[in-house]
C-alpha cells in the first residue's frame, strides 16, 4: 500500500507525518488550487510572451539583416539578444515553481496531476516556446483550471496563445474566407491547416476511438479558422489570440453529425459537444489509469472514473478523486513505471535532496547576463535525464508507457544522477538511521529492501541501489 504515496504523489519526506487515512490524505489535496509554494518571483504568461516577442523581432527583423555577411557577428549578437530576453533563465525559473509544488507544497497529489494535464495538453518542442511561455501556460491555463470542469480547461487551452502557436492555427485560413480571396488576388495561396483541429479531436478530447473521419477533421479546422494571434508589425505573431472573422470559413459546418453555424461562437459550441461525448470521458479515464496504475488499464479500473465524470459533469476535483481512489484500490496489485521527472522528484522528496535552487538565488538573476550554473541546474538535469517536460518531441507529449523509457542510456542516467543527488543532500540525512527510517516509512517490505541495499558498504551506493530498485522505478 505504501507505494500509493509514490504512485499518486512523490512518497513521504522526512518531515511528513504518515497519514492515518492515506486515501483521505490524497483526496483532501484536490479541492482547491492553492497559491504556489515558490516564494520567489513569478512572471505572467503575458510578460514572458513579451520577452519572446523581443527575441523574435530582434532576431528576425534586426540582426538577420544587419549581419547578413557576418556569420560570427550574427552569432555573437544573437547570443546577446538571448540573454537580454532571458532565454536561458525563464524556463529554469518555471521548473523551480513546478518542482516546488511536488517537494515543498502541502498538495503533492495535485502537483502530480498537474504534470499529467500539462502533458495531456502538451506543448512540444517548437521555436522557443519552451524557453519563454510553456511553463507559464501550464500555470495559468492548466493548473488554474484544475478545480473547474474539464470543459473549461479545454476551452481555455484551445485558444491559449501558446497552444495556437504550437499547433499552427495561425496558418489555418478558411479557403472561402475574405483573407483567402485577398491572398488569391495577390497570387498567394492560403488554406486550411488541420494540425490544431486534429489534435483537439485526437489528443485533447474524443480520441480516434470515437470514429471521426478526415472530413470531420477538415470541418473542425473550418470551425477553428480565424482563431489567431492579433498580428502587429512589432509584436509579429506574439499578439493576444482573438477571433478574426476575415480568416474564418463561412457557412455551416458539420462535425460528428451535428451542424454548427459559422462564426466566433462555433468553436466553443463544438468543444462543449466534444467533452460530453462518451469517448472523451473514456479516453481521459484510460489515460489517468495509465498514468497512475498500469500501461494497460482495464475497463473495471476506468469505470469509477467515468461514473464520477458523468455524475459531476466533468468536474475535475471529482474526477481526480475517483482516479486517486482507483489508484489506491489497485496499489497492491499494480506498480507503475515512473517517468524520469517523477522519479527524480520521488528521490528528492524521500531522501531530502535539495533539488530546487533557492528563491533568493533565482531572484539574483539580471537580464542580459548568462544565468549561473546553479541557476540553470534543473533545466540541465532534466535534459540529461531525457525528460524535459517542456520539450516533448510530439504534440502527444511524453509517453506514459514504460516501454518507451526502457533504453540503456536512460537507465544509465538514473544511476549516475542518483549518485549526484546523494552529494546534494545535507550531512544529517547522510546516515544509516535516515535511510532506515525512510525505507520503513515508504515501502511495504522494508527489511527486504534494507537487506538488499546493505550489500553495498558505502552509503552513497546504497542510495543509488535504493532508487534503482524495481520497487522505486515502479511504484
Amino acid at each position, binding site marked *: 500500500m505504501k507505494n500509493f504515496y509514490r504512485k499518486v504523489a512523490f512518497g513521504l519526506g522526512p518531515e511528513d507525518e504518515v497519514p492515518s487515512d492515506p486515501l483521505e490524505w490524497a483526496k483532501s489535496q484536490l479541492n482547491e488550487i492553492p497559491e504556489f509554494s515558490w516564494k520567489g518571483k513569478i512572471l505572467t504568461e503575458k510578460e514572458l510572451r513579451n520577452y519572446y516577442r523581443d527575441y523574435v523581432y530582434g532576431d528576425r527583423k534586426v540582426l538577420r539583416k544587419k549581419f547578413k555577411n557576418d556569420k560570427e557577428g550574427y552569432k555573437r549578437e544573437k547570443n546577446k539578444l538571448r540573454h537580454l530576453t532571458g532565454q536561458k533563465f525563464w524556463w529554469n525559473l518555471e521548473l523551480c515553481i513546478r518542482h516546488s509544488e511536488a517537494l515543498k507544497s502541502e498538495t503533492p497529489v495535485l502537483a502530480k496531476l498537474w504534470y499529467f494535464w500539462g502533458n495531456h495538453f502538451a506543448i512540444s518542442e517548437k521555436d522557443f516556446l519552451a524557453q519563454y511561455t510553456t511553463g507559464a501556460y501550464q500555470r495559468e491555463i492548466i493548473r488554474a483550471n484544475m478545480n473547474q470542469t474539464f470543459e473549461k480547461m479545454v476551452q481555455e487551452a484551445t485558444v491559449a496563445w501558446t497552444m495556437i502557436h504550437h499547433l499552427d492555427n495561425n496558418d489555418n485560413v478558411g479557403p472561402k474566407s475574405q483573407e483567402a480571396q485577398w491572398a488569391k488576388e495577390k497570387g498567394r495561396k492560403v488554406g486550411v491547416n488541420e494540425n490544431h483541429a486534429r489534435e483537439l479531436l485526437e489528443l485533447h478530447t474524443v480520441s480516434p476511438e470515437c470514429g471521426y473521419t478526415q472530413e470531420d477533421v477538415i470541418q473542425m479546422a473550418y470551425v477553428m479558422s480565424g482563431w489567431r494571434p492579433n498580428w502587429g508589425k512589432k509584436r509579429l505573431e506574439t499578439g493576444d489570440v482573438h477571433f478574426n472573422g476575415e480568416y474564418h470559413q463561412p457557412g455551416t459546418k458539420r462535425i460528428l453529425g451535428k451542424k454548427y453555424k459559422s462564426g466566433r461562437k462555433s468553436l466553443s459550441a463544438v468543444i462543449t459537444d466534444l467533452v460530453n461525448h462518451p469517448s472523451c470521458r473514456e479516453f481521459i479515464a484510460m489515460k489517468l489509469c495509465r498514468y497512475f496504475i498500469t500501461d494497460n488499464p482495464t475497463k473495471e479500473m476506468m469505470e469509477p472514473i467515468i461514473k464520477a465524470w458523468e455524475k459531476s459533469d466533468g468536474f475535475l476535483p471529482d474526477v481526480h478523486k475517483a482516479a486517486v481512489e482507483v489508484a489506491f484500490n489497485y496499489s497492491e496489485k499494480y506498480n507503475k513505471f515512473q517517468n524520469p521527472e517523477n522519479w527524480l522528484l520521488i528521490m528528492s522528496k524521500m531522501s531530502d535532496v535539495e533539488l530546487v535552487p533557492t528563491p533568493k538565488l533565482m531572484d539574483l538573476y539580471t537580464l542580459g547576463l548568462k544565468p549561473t550554473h546553479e541557476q540553470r541546474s534543473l533545466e540541465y538535469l532534466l535534459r540529461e535525464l531525457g525528460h524535459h517536460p517542456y520539450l516533448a518531441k510530439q504534440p502527444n507529449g511524453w509517453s506514459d508507457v514504460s*516501454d518507451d523509457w*526502457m*533504453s540503456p542510456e536512460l*537507465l544509465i542516467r538514473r544511476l549516475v544522477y542518483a549518485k549526484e543527488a546523494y552529494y546534494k543532500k545535507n550531512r544529517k540525512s547522510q546516515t544509516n538511521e535516515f535511510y532506515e527510517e525512510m525505507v520503513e516509512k515508504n515501502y511495504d517490505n522494508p527489511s527486504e529492501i534494507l537487506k538488499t541495499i546493505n550489500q553495498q558498504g558505502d552509503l552513497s551506493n546504497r542510495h543509488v541501489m535504493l532508487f534503482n530498485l524495481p520497487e522505486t522505478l515502479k511504484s
Partner: protein
Amino acid sequence: MKISRRNFLKGSATTLFLAGFNFPVLANTTKKKNLVIIMLRGGMDGLCAVPIIGDKNFEKRRKDLILDETIKLNSDFALHPKLKNFYNLWQNNLGAIVHATNIPYTKRSHFDGQNLMETGGHIPYAIKTGWLGRGMKLGELKGDGLALSLPMPLLLRGIPSNDNFYPSKKRLPRTELLQLLKSVYADKSEHDLANMMEIIANRSMMSSGGTSMSRKNSSLAYKAGLELKKINGPRVAVFEVDGFDTHAAQGGINGSHSDSLIEMDSIFKSLEKGLGNEIENTLVLTLTEFGRTIEQNGGRGTEHGYGSAIFMAGGLLKKSQVYTDWPGLKRKELFEGRDLNSTIDARSVYASAMSTVFDIDFKRIQKEVFWGDKLQDLSDKLFKI
C-alpha cells in the same frame, strides 16, 4: 562501449519472440549488412551541398551564396568543397547522391516535416511509429537498432528493444553494483530491466577509467562503426545533425550551412574508420524534411523549400553517381515558382535501401511499411543486389 546483442537476445523477454520463428536473416546469409540513417534537421539545402553547374537561373537568384572552388562530380553537378570525406568515398565508388528528391510533404513547417520524414506518412502526427522501425519489424530485427541520441528517435519506433548510445558526462557506478542490480531485477522477474543492466554493465567495463566520452557526432560515429562491424552487433544506426535551418548568413564556403554539412561529413569519415572493411556491407543514407528556396532572402539566407538531395555512402552502392530526374530551375519548372521540385519520392530510396539491406522483397516493404503508396523500386539502379 560493448553491446552484446546475443546476450541481450537470451533474455526471456525475447524467448517468446524467437519461439515462433526460424532464427531470422543472419542464420541464412553469411553477410551481415548494416543500414545507417543520418537525419539532417532544419532542411538541408541540396543546392548548396550539390550545386548544379552552369545554370543561369541558379546563379542569378543566389548570387551571394554561390560557392567557389566546388568539386566537379560530373558534367552537371558539383560538390560542396568542404565535403572532403564524402568526396573520398565518391572516388572509391562508395559515395552517391540522389538529387531533386523529397518526402511527399509540400508545406513548410519543420515541425510537421520532421514528423513526416520519420513516420513516412502523409498527415503530420497521424502515425506514431517510424518507417525504419516498421521496416525492422518486417525484417524481424528486434534488438538490432542503435540510436546515437538520448531519447529514442521516432524513426526507430515500431520495434522494441533498441539500444542507444549517448554518453553521460558522469561516471557510472562500479560494475559490482550494476551486477547486483541486475541480479535483483532477474530475481524479481524484471526481464527488460535485467537486459538493459546487462548492456550497461558490459558498457561500463569498456569505458576508460570513467572519463566521459565525447558526444560529438564524429566520436559517436566511430563507436557506432565499431559496433556495426561486429557480427553480433547492431544492424541499424541512427544519427542526428542539427542546424540546417539557415535563414540568415547561410554564406558561402564558410557559412553556417557549411558548418552543418561538415558535421555530416565527419560522420561519414568516422563511420568508415570504425567499420573498416565492413563499410563494404553497409549503406548510409541521409534524411531531411525539405530543401531550401532557390532565391536567397534579405538576410543572405534561404527559406524553407521543397526538393533536396540524399547523400548515400557505403559498399552496397551500385556505383558513384548523381541519380536524378532533373526538373530544371526555370520559374515554371519550380515548385510553386520558388523551390527545386521533387521528382523522386525519397521514400522510394529508403524502401529500396531497406529491401537491399534487410533482404525483404520491395513490394512487401511498400505494402507493409508505406501502406501500398506508389513507390518505385530503385534497388537495381542504386544498390548492389
